């Protein structure tokens, strides 16, 4: 199990933004924090590191996402 802290920076367009937020909220692997302006705190929980990397790459590919910063990764044993 891997837990990662991310900041997802959204683009400013209101429509794409709402769509992206809805999409992220639906993903069971993601926990969303309260956005601060364009910056959204996100926690990603995946079964292993490879899945985590794939998830971050997937997020970066979304049209309303300007960038994804990975702040920390906890590689838990259990």
């Amino acid at each position, binding site marked *: 199990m891997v837990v990662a802290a991310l900041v997802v920076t959204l683009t400013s367009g209101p429509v794409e933004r709402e769509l992206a937020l809805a999409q992220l909220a639906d993903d069971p692997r993601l926990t969303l*924090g*309260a956005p*601060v302006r364009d910056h959204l*705190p996100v926690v990603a929980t995946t079964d292993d590191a490879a899945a985590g990397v794939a998830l971050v790459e997937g997020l970066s590919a979304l049209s309303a996402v300007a960038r994804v910063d990975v702040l920390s990764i906890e590689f838990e*044993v*259990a």
Partner: protein
Amino acid sequence: MTRARRGLHLWFAAAAATGAVGLVAGVEGSRRVVDQPIADTAAVPDAVPTEARSYRDLRNRAFGPNAGLAEAWWRTVAPPTDEAPRPTTPADRAAALAQRAARRAFEGAPPVIPHEVDQLAAPACLACHEHGVAIGGRIAPPMSHPAHASCLQCHVVADDPRPGAVTPPAPATTFVGLRPSGGGTRAWAGAPPTIPHSTWMRDECASCHGPRGRLGLQTPHPGQVSCRQCHASSAVADQRAPVPRSP
């Protein structure tokens, strides 16, 4: 005795009782660790002479023959490190700094005491302020400095200590005290900030920045306890720098 104080005493009684139970349980626990490792201490496999432990386990779990005792005791007195820091906002931080300032003449002054104290007896401040406690919404922060015996030498109450006395308005002053800066400096975005204040008498960072600190001042990484490994102190604020002298 005011109602608030009576409440405190009850709380202490409860804490003491809990402590006693914990102690007994702890002794039991210590035997158990030696005899049969329990399932969730997976990092302590049987019959391995040198334990390989993750840093997280070192931090979060006691080990060795007295592990159970230590854990039980620690649970009664220690800040709950398993409680996650709450996310903070600039408003939290501003409010925390304003609250701090309200109790200090200037940044670095000893804070006044916002509650009654026994004016005559040897101070019992450490009961709450040694490790800090939270009672309801109120937090007794742990001390920022090593213990001195005569607490009331530096800390005085914020209002007339005589029962029922009405504290007159504070005298007018033109003093404008030093206030906390906006924080330390960073060499680059993401670098650990420097410590913006003196660390003299403020070397227990957890006093303000730990889980018992005010929301807004808490560190986002309470697990790291060797603060000054990453955060540099100021030689000027700490009186280590050569001071310019008048002629």
